[in-house]
């Protein structure tokens, strides 16, 4: 095989996206119809690798039945001075891309879902051995990624060998995921921005960091990174972190700069982990809303699918106007459900110790992320449905926000400089008791009118 200088196919980016349909395929390797398939990249010591070696364990293409489907494994082993364990996943991802550079070979999906097809035409032209594919991959990887000093491939088609390889790969993916889930904002150089929703909210910019998933719940830091690489001119782009201005609130000069630019000057400062002062803006896509409850100095959360009114008497839809639209609303934050699982979840505001109310279904879903001592203290719609009962209930369960009340002087008076933030009035002024002697301070109020109609008197 080493003597073969020429590969029996063309290679290049133009073959990416080439689709091999069922009637045109010679064989299928992996895919939804077979049980065991996997691809894996592993870093090794240089001495463990024979550079350029391609092995096939089990029947090769020429020994397969036309139209057949086979269990399939791809093991890629690499060595290089600069190759670290963390790069394995990044290199593994490129197998998909480079396999698709090969004319007549289709590669879909990743990890334990890979699905490959060899075209009849390509087989007819000489792609009769997986060794050719391996040789092509060796060539492509070394040309594109010079940090790889040595590389070898093993293709596995023998059924029992694939089963064994598959279970070994699953363990490795699991460990890799556990590591990735622990990734902190401090561990990365770049965050990512997303302006996918600017058609709805022209001044909204989403910042996605390892500890803050996009508020739609659909874009993780990894997703945004992948998207910005696939389509550098697309809606996802890197945000250099710049200086860390406030560790607790999560304020970075890089985020401020990019947000200011992309929000057309509308938003100048952003706190990643607070609902006060400079909360992250929202389009309208958030999965849930965190809202300040001034009466108890706590925070409630209402998810999009919650029917009826939240504990403050407002429905999700009523508060959505306040949280969305790309504007910063002190005391309101649109966020993903997944963000509640973040180690930095609203850390500037007290995190879970500040959360007083959360509908039961959502509470159940994120229960394992709620600190154990708080699990009985975060109330749900089954415990309380209105503000007047909320206070008593919080005292009853000894919720930590109760301590905040005691710290405040009883005779504070109306003029005192509020430590606790003043809430902007929601769009509709629901639930304000008439003649209660309450003074309303409209701090930083903005008046919005959909239309201004000028009419001549008497017409």
């Amino acid at each position, binding site marked *: 095989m080493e003597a073969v200088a020429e590969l029996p196919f063309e290679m290049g980016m133009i073959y990416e996206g080439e689709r091999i349909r069922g*009637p045109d395929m010679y064989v299928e390797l992996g895919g939804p119809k077979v049980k065991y398939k996997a691809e894996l990249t592993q870093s090794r010591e240089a001495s463990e690798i024979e550079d350029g070696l391609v092995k096939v364990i089990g029947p090769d293409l020429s020994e397969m039945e036309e139209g057949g489907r086979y269990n399939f494994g791809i093991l890629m082993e690499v060595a290089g001075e600069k190759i670290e364990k963390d790069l394995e*996943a990044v290199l593994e991802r490129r197998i998909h891309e480079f396999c698709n550079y090969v004319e007549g070979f289709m590669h879909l999906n990743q990890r334990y879902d890979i699905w490959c097809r060899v075209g009849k035409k390509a087989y007819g032209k000489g792609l009769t051995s997986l060794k050719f594919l391996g040789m092509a991959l060796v060539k492509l990887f070394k040309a594109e990624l010079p940090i790889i000093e040595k590389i070898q491939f093993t293709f596995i088609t023998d059924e029992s060998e694939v089963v064994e390889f598959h279970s070994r790969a699953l363990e490795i993916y699991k460990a*890799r995921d556990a590591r990735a889930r622990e990734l902190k904002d401090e561990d990365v150089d770049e965050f990512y921005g997303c302006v996918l929703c600017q058609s709805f909210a022209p001044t909204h910019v989403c910042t996605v960091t390892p500890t803050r998933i996009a508020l739609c719940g659909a874009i*993780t830091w990894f997703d945004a990174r992948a998207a910005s690489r696939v389509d550098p001119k697309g809606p996802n782009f890197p945000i250099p972190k710049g200086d860390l201005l406030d560790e607790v609130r999560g304020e970075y000069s890089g985020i401020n700069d990019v947000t200011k630019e992309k929000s057309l000057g509308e938003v100048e400062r952003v706190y990643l982990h607070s609902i006060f002062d400079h909360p992250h803006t929202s389009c309208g*896509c958030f999965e849930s809303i965190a809202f300040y409850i001034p009466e108890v100095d706590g925070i409630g959360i209402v998810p999009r699918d919650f029917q009826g009114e939240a504990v403050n008497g407002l429905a999700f839809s009523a508060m959505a106007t306040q949280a969305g639209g790309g504007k910063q609303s002190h005391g309101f934050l649109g966020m993903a459900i997944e963000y509640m699982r973040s180690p930095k979840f609203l850390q500037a505001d007290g995190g879970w110790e500040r959360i007083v109310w959360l509908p039961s279904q959502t509470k159940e879903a994120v229960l394992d992320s709620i600190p154990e001592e708080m699990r009985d203290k975060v109330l749900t719609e089954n415990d309380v449905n209105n503000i007047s009962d909320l206070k008593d209930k919080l005292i009853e369960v000894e919720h930590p926000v109760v301590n905040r009340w005691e710290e405040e002087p009883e005779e504070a008076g109306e003029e005192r400089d509020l430590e606790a933030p003043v809430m902007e009035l929601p769009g509709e002024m629901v639930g304000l008791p008439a003649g209660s002697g309450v003074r309303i301070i409209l701090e930083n109020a903005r008046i919005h009118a959909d239309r201004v109609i000028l009419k001549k008197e008497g017409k």
Partner: protein
Amino acid sequence: MRILVGGKGGTGKTLVSGLIVRSLIEGGVEGPILAVDADPDANLGEALGVGVESTLGLVREELLENQRRMGPEVDKRVWLESKIYEIITEGQDFDVLTMGRPEGPGCYCAVNNILRNLLDTLSSSYPFLVIDAEAGLEHLSRRTTGKVDEMVIVTDLSVKGFMTARRIVDLAESLGSRFGKFHLIANRVVNGGGALGALSSRVGIDIHTIIPEDPEVTRADIEGRSVFTLGDESPSYASIRSFVGKEILREESG
């Protein structure tokens, strides 16, 4: 070439789409055709006689439901691409992609952005694309359709049908040059179509092809037979075959 079949619901878009696919195949076009069932109320797969196991709508929901359980590094684009391939029903001369149910209340911006991109790539690998479009014109107004070469609008003999045709033309024109030619097809025309002239002049679009009321189509529908079972002499198939021959295949070869 992209052919989009639109029109008011219930006018026979799916029949026309299916017959266009058949006419292309029997007209001897090279390469496979991708038939896209983009109308949640229709069933193009059935009209073409193929089973449909899953839809793009279900795949989209699967992603939204399972994304937390996927590894954080799993590339959703790559996952979606594979799933699209999985739900396409592959035939000898044509494949069928079924879009399925519309979106729920959550946020679909991110997933739709990926899907748009993937569908563009996918459709460009087929020489022919026939889309059975939704009556509500969502694809046009949300620009999920991409460039369309031939816009086929189906109507029956109702004023509403013709008004919908007018709206489609207006909407398409307001979106600029991404649309090629328009063809208005009147379906289920009875009594020699005496009312056609008045209707067409009322909305200002000429009728291109007339499909007479066809009892064989009704029978096939009841018996659950595909458009491939209609006889060559069936008036529906004859009309569409002649339309495809004159308007699409001729352009393709010239």
